[in-house]
């Protein structure tokens, strides 16, 4: 049975249509395995080879990968929540309540989005601590650390903009306080707050601006910088293995 299944899979992968999509073809050689990664638009960001110890749990605790997992959950649940949510003052709060009590599985998706958001902030920090205490931020990976700090800021901004969208008392006052903190920036503070809120108070414009930032602008930035972050792992010699002597390009 297993044999025939394997034969079937092999036949499928030799098929002309399959080969037109996946050009690397079948084979167990190192060349073939490398081509599978190299010729795939998503996988080519990563190295074709990795040291075995960098793939063990203790090297990274898989914190970066799990953070990316929460990000993917947030994108999927977020897009689904967008199908019921209107970013307008009369409707936002009611839509949020409808998601909780009226929409099938709405409360599950909303809570999944909320808890994943909390988990992502926690995991980003945990990932940074792990990288920091292993010394994995050092040459030649210092620029990837900088990208990571940008991703931390994008994560926090996503959290903050998402906070307003339920349009309840907590959201309203949190953003009132947050925007007043922004207005403490020297010289441009008041202008900054005005641009951020699209007005002088947290109101319809602010809700719409935060919605666009939360659903379009910040996720695009996050995806862009995540791509650079992953690609830099390969360019900087793979995941940090822990011993300085075998490092490529260190010092």
């Amino acid at each position: 049975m297993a044999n025939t299944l394997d034969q079937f899979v092999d036949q499928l992968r030799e098929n002309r249509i399959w080969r037109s999509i996946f050009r690397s073809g079948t084979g167990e050689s190192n060349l073939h395995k490398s081509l599978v990664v190299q010729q795939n638009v998503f996988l080519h960001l990563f190295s074709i080879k990795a040291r075995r110890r960098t793939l063990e749990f203790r090297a990274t605790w898989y914190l970066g990968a799990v953070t990316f997992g929460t990000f993917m959950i947030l994108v999927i649940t977020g897009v689904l929540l967008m199908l019921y949510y209107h970013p307008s003052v009369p409707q936002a709060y009611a839509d949020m309540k409808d998601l909780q009590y009226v929409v099938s599985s709405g409360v599950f998706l909303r809570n999944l989005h909320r808890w994943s958001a909390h988990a992502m902030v926690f995991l980003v920090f945990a990932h940074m601590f792990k990288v920091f205490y292993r010394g994995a931020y050092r040459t030649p990976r210092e620029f990837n650390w900088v990208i990571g700090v940008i991703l931390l800021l994008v994560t926090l901004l996503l959290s903050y903009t998402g906070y307003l969208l339920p349009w309840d008392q907590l959201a309203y006052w949190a953003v009132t306080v947050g925007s007043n903190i922004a207005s403490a920036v020297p010289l441009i503070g008041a202008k900054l707050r005005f641009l951020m809120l699209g007005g002088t108070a947290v109101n319809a414009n602010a809700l719409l601006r935060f919605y666009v930032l939360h659903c379009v602008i910040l996720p695009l930035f996050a995806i862009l910088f995540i791509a650079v972050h992953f690609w830099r792992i390969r360019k900087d010699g793979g995941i940090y293995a822990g011993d300085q002597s075998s490092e490529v390009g260190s010092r």
Partner: protein
Amino acid sequence: MPENDKSKSVPDSPEEMSRRQFFIKIGVTSMAIAAAGTAAFSYEYLSPNVLYEPSPIVDAGKPDHYPPDSVTLDPQTAIYVVRTGEGFFALSAICTHLGCLTAYKSDLAIIACPCHGSKFNREGVKIEGPAPRPLPWLRMWMSDEGNLMVDRSQAIVSKQVVRI
């Protein structure tokens, strides 16, 4: 072979520039002008010219609605109408720390902020931080119909009381 002819493409006189340098300068300058224009346009676009926000001028109603020696908060407009023996004045109810709505505690006769614990007396003077400034007094006047009017956008420095 432009790479090999680099020495020839650079003119002898320092004032003269090569065709390539000239076009690079033109290109960079026009890109810089376009970038500055884009920044200006973006800023203008992102600043709304018309705000559909409530009017800063509030009709606070007839003076005799306010009992003598009282502090009345209107949460919708975020102002206190204070009636003392001398007359009326209006205080902003927005905390000067981070913009939360304060509340009047009649048993302690203080105005307190729920967010970070700032306290003010009924004249807006700060009793306890973290608020950096006292609550501003707002311009108040009597309308022709005999209503108390408050302009939330105008803080007054001299503490003037509206006498009836």
